[in-house]
Each structure stands twice: as structure tokens, then as C-alpha cells.
């Protein structure tokens, strides 16, 4: 593998820097921990504020690996991100799934942990990935019940992530942002806002992402994900759709949405770039982190001078 090139951070324009808020000073940007990126991450920790570890990869990890993760958590802010719990499903989350996660979180002592607003299985049928459940009052109650159990066993309440879906879940009686808001209110959990997922669902199902942001409790955002995807044109000539694959660079609409969140939020924000394969040189990933920082700065600056949308603004 060719050595990663070192790129300079994108400069923040003076007129933006002058208007940066105290919140922006505490905003952080980081990267999903992937073994393939380990060398590049360690070489550039001065430009990576936070790391996110996928819990599922380490539930059966050796003590040595856990010790390594704990050491890493002492060097850089670290979050644990779980995938497999299915907290938004009708089935009660299994204690046997939560206890290994509790041990991992106890061993590493991360800043926090998270999972998804999804179901993974039903009646023994494993779907294999994150599926959107019907967005109803019943699923609000079931998710809140699962969250309380998870918090009791793991020790802290997770942040919950909105997912990208290729199917508008049938039987829904609530819009996605209203459903998310209801769950946050019912469980008292934080939101891990995946900006790419908002963008993907918006373009695939034809809604305005700004209206989505209007309807979620921005103050509940604990941290954010950004990622890339790719457009797929069906072989039968059907309407192209955006697949959230985490294999491509983050696109400008996602950075614009991130800026919009920064303009609306008053709390410090933490942004994690997710990349799951087809890894570019480290310099390219660091460049994406710089673009995220620039988007946060743009949003914060806009909020200082003119509350309102940063998308399509002057």
C-alpha cells in the first residue's frame, strides 16, 4: 500500500473564523475506527478528535484487544457503536446480546454508546441488517422499553441513530421525524443523527430534509454521522435511487445539511465520518474531516449573524 499523503487542513476563511461561536470551539470531528485505517489514524491523531468503534467486531475480542481499545480511549475521545441489537423491534432485546456489550463498554469506558432505530430480526428470522419498523405508537413504546432494558444492563442510555431505508415501512402512522421525536421523549435518550441517512431518505422518498430537521429535537443530538453513497440506476430503467453504502466520499448536500444542523444547534457537536471499504488514501479522509469542520464553522457563523437556513443562502 502506498504511504498516505499528508494534506493541509482546509483554511477557515477569516470572515468565518471571526464569527465562530463558543459552541464551535468545542465541536469535534473524527472517524470510524477500522483496522485497515489504523496506521493512518495513529499517524494523524492531531487531526482526529474522536473515534468510533463498531462494538459488534469486539464483543468476543481478547483481553489484549480490549486493553488496546481502552488505551486508545485514553488518547482520544472514543464512542462505541453497536449494530445488532434491534432496539426498535417488537421483540424484547435479549439479555444475552446486551451483556457482552455491557462488558465491552465497561472495559473500554467510552464517552458513550449507540445503536440504531431499527429491527434486525423477528421470530427467529435474521434479516441481516438494519430494517425500518412500522412507525407507530406501538413501536415507540417497544423501543422505549428496549432502551430502558439496555440502559439498565449496559449502565448508560445509548444514543439512537436514524437509519437509511429502501422501503417506506408499511403500516406507519407517524412520520419518521415525529416517530424519532416520540421515542426520544419517551425514553429520554439522545439522538445520533446520521446526516447521510437523512439525505438518502429525502432524495429516495421525496421529502425536504430541512422539514425533517424542523421536526426533530435538535437539542437531543449527541453526535452525528456523515458518509457517502452511490446512485444506482435500476436495470429496468426505473427511477435512480441513492444507496447508503459508506464506500464513497461524502457529497456536498450532506455537508450542507451538516452546516444546517450546526446553525440550529446550541450544544457542541461531534461528527464521525463512516467509511466501510474501498478506502482512499488517508489524506482524502482527512480532507473530508476538514470539509466537515468547514461545514460546522459555516453553520455556526451563519447562526451568529442570521438565524435561518444555511442551505441555498447567500
Amino acid at each position, binding site marked *: 500500500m502506498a504511504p498516505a499523503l499528508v494534506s493541509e487542513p482546509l483554511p477557515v476563511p477569516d470572515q468565518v473564523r471571526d464569527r465562530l461561536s463558543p459552541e464551535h470551539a468545542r465541536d469535534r470531528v473524527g472517524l470510524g475506527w477500522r483496522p485497515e485505517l489504523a496506521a493512518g489514524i495513529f499517524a494523524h491523531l492531531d487531526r482526529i478528535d474522536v473515534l468510533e468503534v463498531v462494538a459488534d467486531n469486539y464483543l468476543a475480542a481478547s483481553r489484549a484487544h480490549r486493553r488496546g481499545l481502552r488505551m486508545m480511549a485514553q488518547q482520544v475521545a472514543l464512542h462505541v457503536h453497536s449494530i445488532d441489537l434491534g432496539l426498535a423491534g*417488537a421483540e424484547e432485546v435479549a439479555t444475552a446480546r446486551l451483556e457482552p456489550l455491557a462488558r465491552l463498554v465497561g472495559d473500554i469506558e467510552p464517552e458513550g454508546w449507540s445503536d440504531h432505530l431499527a429491527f434486525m430480526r423477528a421470530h427467529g428470522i435474521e434479516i441481516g441488517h438494519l430494517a425500518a419498523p412500522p412507525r407507530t405508537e406501538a413501536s415507540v413504546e417497544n423501543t422505549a422499553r428496549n432502551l430502558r432494558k439496555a440502559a439498565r444492563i449496559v449502565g448508560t442510555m445509548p444514543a439512537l441513530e436514524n437509519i437509511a431505508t429502501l422501503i417506506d415501512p*408499511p*403500516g406507519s402512522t407517524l412520520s419518521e421525524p415525529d416517530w424519532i421525536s416520540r421515542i426520544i421523549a419517551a425514553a429520554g435518550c439522545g439522538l445520533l443523527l446520521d446526516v447521510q441517512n437523512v439525505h438518502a431518505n429525502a432524495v429516495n422518498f421525496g421529502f425536504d430534509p430541512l422539514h425533517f430537521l424542523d421536526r426533530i429535537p435538535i437539542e437531543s443530538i449527541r453526535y452525528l454521522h456523515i458518509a457517502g453513497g452511490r446512485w444506482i440506476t435500476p436495470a429496468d430503467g426505473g427511477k435512480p435511487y441513492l444507496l447508503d453504502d459508506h464506500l464513497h466520499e461524502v457529497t456536498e448536500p450532506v455537508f450542507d445539511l451538516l452546516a444546517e444542523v450546526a446553525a440550529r444547534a446550541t450544544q457542541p457537536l461531534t461528527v464521525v465520518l463512516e467509511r466501510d471499504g474501498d478506502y482512499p488514501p488517508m489524506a482524502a479522509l482527512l480532507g473530508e474531516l476538514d470539509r466537515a469542520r468547514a461545514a460546522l464553522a459555516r453553520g455556526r457563523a451563519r447562526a451568529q449573524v442570521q438565524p435561518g437556513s444555511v442551505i441555498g443562502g447567500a
Partner: protein
Amino acid sequence: MMQDRLERFLARLYTERTFREAFLADPAAVGAREGLSAEECRAVAAIPTDHLGRAARSFASKRNTKPPPPSILSRFFAR
């Protein structure tokens, strides 16, 4: 609306090709046979066929993805 029943139905649609093909051929009949209410049958019958196909392919791809390679953390930390 029974979330449990509907999630089981969706899980089968996403993972079982023969079940999905039977559903696409006659959504109302398959829904009724699986115990869905009339309201639930109408809801699942409204799923666009192309959306269901792409979701099923995406889930199948995820299920078939190999587990991640062993962590190289040990190169840095393990003794």
C-alpha cells in the same frame, strides 16, 4: 396494528425468495394467510415492487458479506 406480526411478515419478505414471489403474485391472499389484518394487508400490498426487490437484494448482500478481518490492534497493543 400488531407490530410483531407485521415485522415477522416483513422479515420473511426480505429474506425468503419464494415467500416474496408468492406475495408479489397475490399480496392480499398471502397477507391474509399469514394472519395480517385487512388494514395490514392493504399496507404491505402498497409496497412498490421495485422497492421491495432492491431492499431484499441489499439485505441479502449484507447477510453474505464476510465478517471483517481480524483487528490489527494487536500489532500495536497486544503482548
